[in-house]
């Protein structure tokens, strides 16, 4: 049998109809289940339910159409059909195994190589820059006292800038840590009912400005590096006689 040959694109809408042939073949299970329920034969009811469950599970897999789902659908259908044949069809264990294997093989042949999409991508790895505790503390500040919000928002912006360039910005990190520490202490006092001094808004503004300046500083370093890079490349092109 050919291995997986499907593309990694999202299957089209009619993928949902892949299981319809199986459903059509399994239609006799429905009246059988009704009659079995009427007769009250537990073995028969169980077998019918197993067959229907196998068909439904296989159809669900075929509809989902992630990689290897068609193979799993074959296994589910095989197990369901085997159980149904053994318990409700009166074939006994050997007949059940044979019919189950036939169903599995048929599904493998019919659905082998159909287009399936890749499994969902694993979640992105957490930031490895050691700033996660600061992120959590800032999130708490941002949802806390509204008087501290301008400074906390600016600190959040600075944190984003630092995240983009984890190797740089020692000074910016210092500003961030100092700002978050200070804001946390102020927020704790305010939460305990302290009356804010008149100088608090000025301090919050100063902190916000310091954070913005530190962020600008980081970006300026980046801009400077880009300027140098552009100049070097231009010189090189000139030397090579390309431009």
């Amino acid at each position, binding site marked *: 049998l050919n291995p997986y040959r499907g593309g990694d694109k999202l299957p089209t809408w009619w993928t949902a109809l892949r299981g319809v042939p199986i459903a059509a073949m399994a239609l006799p299970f429905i009246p*059988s289940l009704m009659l079995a329920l009427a007769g009250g034969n537990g073995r028969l009811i169980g077998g019918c339910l197993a067959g229907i469950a196998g068909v439904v599970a296989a159809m669900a897999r075929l509809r989902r159409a992630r990689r290897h789902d068609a193979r799993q659908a074959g296994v589910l259908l095989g197990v369901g059909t085997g159980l149904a044949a053994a318990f409700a069809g009166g074939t006994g264990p050997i007949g059940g195994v044979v019919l189950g294997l036939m169903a599995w093989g048929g599904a493998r042949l*019919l659905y082998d190589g159909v287009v399936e999409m890749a499994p969902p991508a694993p979640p992105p790895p957490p930031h490895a820059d050691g700033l996660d505790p600061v992120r959590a503390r800032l999130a708490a500040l941002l949802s806390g006292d509204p008087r501290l919000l301008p400074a906390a928002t600016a600190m959040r912006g600075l944190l984003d800038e630092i995240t983009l360039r984890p190797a740089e910005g020692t000074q910016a990190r210092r500003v961030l840590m100092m700002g978050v520490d200070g804001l946390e202490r102020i927020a704790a006092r305010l939460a305990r009912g302290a009356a804010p001094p008149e100088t608090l808004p000025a301090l919050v503004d100063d902190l916000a400005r310091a954070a913005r300046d530190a962020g600008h500083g980081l970006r300026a370093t980046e801009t400077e590096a880009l300027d140098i890079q552009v100049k070097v490349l231009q010189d090189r092109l000139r030397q090579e006689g390309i431009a």
Partner: protein
Amino acid sequence: MKPVPLSTPARRLAGFALLAASVGFTGLLTFVQAVAGLFR
């Protein structure tokens, strides 16, 4: 001697036939059993 692989349409047809012979036949068997169970 290398085995000749089935072409895709032949493979699909064979799969369909196998499914019909297994799932369809099992369904019919259960139906017969269920009907017979009513008269037992």
